[in-house]
């Protein structure tokens, strides 16, 4: 039985983490996501499921505690907002380089620098292109509702362990702070040590007689060994791109134009579709749910049907680059978005569609 509740997106992350059997959370206060840790602390999961919740001394400490927990084969997560996630980039590239699974929640706020505490989607590049140094990727999920904030926690852990790679839940201040009804999953037990030992041989469990020594590392001083490892990583990413693309198509069947939007922008665009269709403009939306892997094939298919696409983001134009790469010049692709903490209105989006795409 799923339980129906009314709560903030940030609170949903916390409840979902406990319910899916996460082993640990490490975080540091930052607006607009402090409710994740506050909810976890109030729920006292260490008494019910045994989950650990710890307030670290910084985001750098948080991500490295995650690194340590992940190395033990445990399901660990952290959450923060943009400036804090910037601090975590070193840890993330080491986690990816060590092929360790973990979940990071970024409740994005306007930047650059300290920026604002209002919602933004300007961390797209940082999330989907790697963020830290080296050739690696984060599997990136973009929730557009409080329900998806809850649902994507377990999904993220599943993907993280399937591919032994960090998974980012790229949310924003609007999705984190808004309250909606949400159906929470039933409580699932945490993994036992026996389960981890059997299923995740790489995990730090203590070396038994006859076991191979296992050292978690991301360094290979022999460049040819490092190249081989990079080939292995890239093969894994191709597999992710083949199998894990997720998206939602809204009113695309008869569409002459489409919005490409994720997260809170996708919510705004749903209203924009209503407004535009009332005016007789046949517009639909492709909502990427995974930002990496990106729904390239779907956009290529839509490019055969529509006359133009508008990438709507709370940024100066980031995802639009991936839309253009996918479409490869077949149809015009433009960007529209307010940024720095300001959100566009549905009407502004329709106006942008008329001016930038239809007007041509």
């Amino acid at each position, binding site marked *: 039985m799923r339980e129906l509740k009314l709560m903030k997106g940030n609170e949903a992350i916390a409840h979902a983490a406990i319910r899916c059997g996460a082993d640990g959370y490490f975080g*540091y*206060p*930052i*607006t607009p996501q*402090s409710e994740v*840790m*506050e909810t976890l*602390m*109030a729920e*006292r999961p260490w008494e019910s499921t045994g989950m650990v919740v710890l*307030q670290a*001394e*910084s*985001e*750098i400490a948080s991500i490295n505690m995650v690194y340590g927990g992940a190395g033990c084969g445990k399901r660990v997560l952290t959450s923060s907002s943009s*400036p804090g996630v910037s601090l975590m980039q070193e840890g993330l590239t080491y986690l990816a380089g060590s092929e360790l699974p973990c979940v990071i929640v970024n409740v994005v706020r306007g930047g650059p620098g*300290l920026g604002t505490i209002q919602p933004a989607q300007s961390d797209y590049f940082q999330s989907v292109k790697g963020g830290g140094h080296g050739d690696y990727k984060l599997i990136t999920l973009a929730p557009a509702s409080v329900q998806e904030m809850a649902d994507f926690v377990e999904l993220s852990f599943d993907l993280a362990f399937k591919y032994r790679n960090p998974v980012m839940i790229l949310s924003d201040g609007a999705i984190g702070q808004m309250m909606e009804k949400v159906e929470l999953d039933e409580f699932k037990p945490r993994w036992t040590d026996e389960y981890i030992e059997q299923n995740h041989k790489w995990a730090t469990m203590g070396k038994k007689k006859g076991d191979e020594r296992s050292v978690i590392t991301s360094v290979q001083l022999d460049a040819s060994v490092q190249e081989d490892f990079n080939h292995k990583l890239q093969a894994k990413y191709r597999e992710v791109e083949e199998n894990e693309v997720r998206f939602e198509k809204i009113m695309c069947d008869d569409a002459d134009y489409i919005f490409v939007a994720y997260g809170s922008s996708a919510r705004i665009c749903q209203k924009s579709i209503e407004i535009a269709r009332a005016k007789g403009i046949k517009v639909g939306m492709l909502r990427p749910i995974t930002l990496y892997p990106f729904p390239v094939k779907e956009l290529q298919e839509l490019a055969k049907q529509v006359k133009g696409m508008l990438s709507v983001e709370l940024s100066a134009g980031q995802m639009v680059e991936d839309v253009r790469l996918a479409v490869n010049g077949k149809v015009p692709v433009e960007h529209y978005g307010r940024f720095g903490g300001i959100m566009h209105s549905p009407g502004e989006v329709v106006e942008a569609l008329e001016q930038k795409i239809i007007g041509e």
Partner: protein
Amino acid sequence: MSEHCELKYTDFKSDLSVRWCPGCGDHAILNAVQKAMANLKVLPHEVAVISGIGCSSRFPYYMNTYGFHTIHGRAAAVASGVKVANPNLHVWQITGDGDALAIGGNHFIHLIRRNIDINVILFNNQIYGLTKGQYSPTSKRGFISKTSPFGTVEDPFRPGELALGARSQFFARTVDKELKLSIEVMQEAAKHKGTSIVEVLQNCVIYNDKTHEAITDKKHKADRTIVLHHGEKMVFGANKDKGLVLDGMDIKAVTIGEDGYTLEDILVHDAESYHVSMHRKLANMDYPELPVALGVIRSVEGLSYDQSVELQLKEVQAQTNISSFEELVNAGDVWEVK
């Protein structure tokens, strides 16, 4: 510092309206800093105020000086960069217990170890106020907050102990509402060459109200705090009838005229002693066992980073036989291409 000008504290006020909560201790600290600067006769354009992130870090906006609102925890590093790049500036770092001792702990201890000539004003309200009430690294064990609804299970840092452990040559403590004392210790801190740490016991009226009240309220402060002055007997109490003595290795509070203790037995404060052990004992005194020490606890002359660099330059220059650019070009590994 210019000796000629007459400065008022209002010369250091910016025209921005101050946006801290009504009743916040930060207002009084801002006043104290502005008054100390006016007394020091330092001109606004000779001062840079560097902050990190937190409520206290709004400080640069309210100062009519150069200002730098930087990164959470990094103010010490940014201030170091400012001071070594422009040693003529008087650099003040404004920070809080979260900013300086949690995320910025590393930079905090290394600033002190390098002894760069920066005045650090550390607002200690034992809470994260800006993010609305999570426990900080100075919150007492068992403290209840949004991220510790059942009490913290961690021991706090004592800023004085940490600073002295990082070999601080200047450590003072004051209370937000003790304006006169704050001005006095801030002036001493500014005059000190090298890193000066001033811990201000500050009240957060919204998320941690009255956290220092047990020792700072009018009724009890005379008996629960002791204001230290270099070269003077360590006496305290409403009637100045209490004092500190050494009992074995520990400090003990006694009443003069009781148990055979006379004024003769009371310790004299030596802030300028190089040995840190007594300063550490004084900095660590806590109510209810002992009065909390206020004033300048340690002020030892040593080489600041700048002075050390200058000294090294002179030493190297004295030893070298290179005295011109031509000699420099021809020094070391030189060969002729034919």
